[in-house]
C-alpha cells in the first residue's frame, strides 16, 4: 500500500531509519503497535520505539501546516546491569538521529530540529529503560 498521509510518511521515514541503524548494530527493535517478544540472547538490549505527533507547530499561508512531534526510542535492558552500559546505549541511540538530520519521504521533508536527549531512566518489573527523545518537524 502506497502511503499518502503526511504523518504516516514522516513515521515511515523515521522508523525506517531507526530499523536500518539498529540493524547495523544488530539490536532488535520493538516497533509501535507491532508484535515483539524480548529475547536478550540476541543482544543485551533492545530498542522500543514510539511515535508521538504533536498539535501543529504553525500554519503557513502558502506552505500549509508545519507539523512537529517526538520519536521516542528507548534502550531497554534487563535489570541489574548497572547504569553505565545503559547510558552507553542511549548515546548510541542519540547518534542515530543527529540534529539537522533531514529525511525525505513522499514529498515531505522531516528535520530533527534539536539534538536528541536522554530522559530519566526508570524501572519496570523486569526491565530497566532509558528513553531518548528525538524532536522532529516537517
Amino acid at each position, binding site marked *: 500500500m502506497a502511503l499518502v498521509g503526511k504523518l504516516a510518511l514522516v513515521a515511515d521515514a523515521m522508523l525506517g531509519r531507526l530499523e536500518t541503524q539498529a540493524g547495523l548494530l544488530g539490536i532488535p527493535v520493538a516497533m509501535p503497535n507491532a508484535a515483539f517478544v524480548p529475547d536478550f540472547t540476541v543482544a543485551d538490549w533492545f530498542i522500543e520505539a*514510539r511515535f*508521538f505527533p*504533536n*498539535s501543529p*507547530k*504553525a500554519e503557513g499561508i502558502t506552505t500549509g501546516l508545519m507539523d*512537529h*512531534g*517526538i520519536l*521516542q526510542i*528507548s534502550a531497554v535492558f534487563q535489570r541489574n546491569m548497572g547504569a553505565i552500559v545503559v547510558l552507553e546505549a542511549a548515546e548510541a541511540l542519540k547518534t542515530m538521529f543527529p540534529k539537522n538530520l533531514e529525511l525525505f519521504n513522499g514529498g515531505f521533508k522531516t528535520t530533527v530540529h534539536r539534538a536528541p536527549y536522554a*530522559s*530519566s531512566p*526508570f524501572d*519496570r518489573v523486569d526491565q530497566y*529503560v532509558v*528513553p531518548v*527523545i528525538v*524532536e522532529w518537524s516537517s
Partner: protein
Amino acid sequence: MRGPAAVKVYAEIERVKARLNAVYQEALIKFAEDMQRPVSQGGNMPVKTEFLRSSLEASPMGASPPLVPHPGGKQYHYNADEVNSVLRTATIRKHRLRLTYTAEYAAHAEHNHRFRALAVQNWSKHVAAASTKYAAGRL
C-alpha cells in the same frame, strides 16, 4: 532629580518589565493547560481516576515535593485555579517555579504518553500567543 524625559523612560521600562512577566505567566498557564489536557479532549494526559492529573503542584524552586503512590479506588479532581494562582506569581528573572507531578507513577505515564515533553515542544507557541495577547499598548 530626574528630568521629564528620564521619568518617561523609567515608566516605559517598568511597563516593559510588567509585560514581560505577564507574557511569562500567561505562557506558563497555557503550558500547564496543554500538558494537562486529557486524551479525551485531544490532549496527551491519560485520565482514569485523575490522580496523576490532580497531582500537579506548582512550587518555588528548591527541593521537590515527595512522591506519593496511588492510594487506589476513588476519583480525584484537578484544580487548575490553584496551580494557576501560583504560576501568576512567577517572574522571569527572580521568581522561577517548579511544576511537579507527585504521583509516583508519573514517569511511567510520561514514557507512554509524553504529555510533558509534547507540551514543552509547544513552549514557543505558548510564548508567541501570550506575546500577542500582551502586545505593546495592551497592558
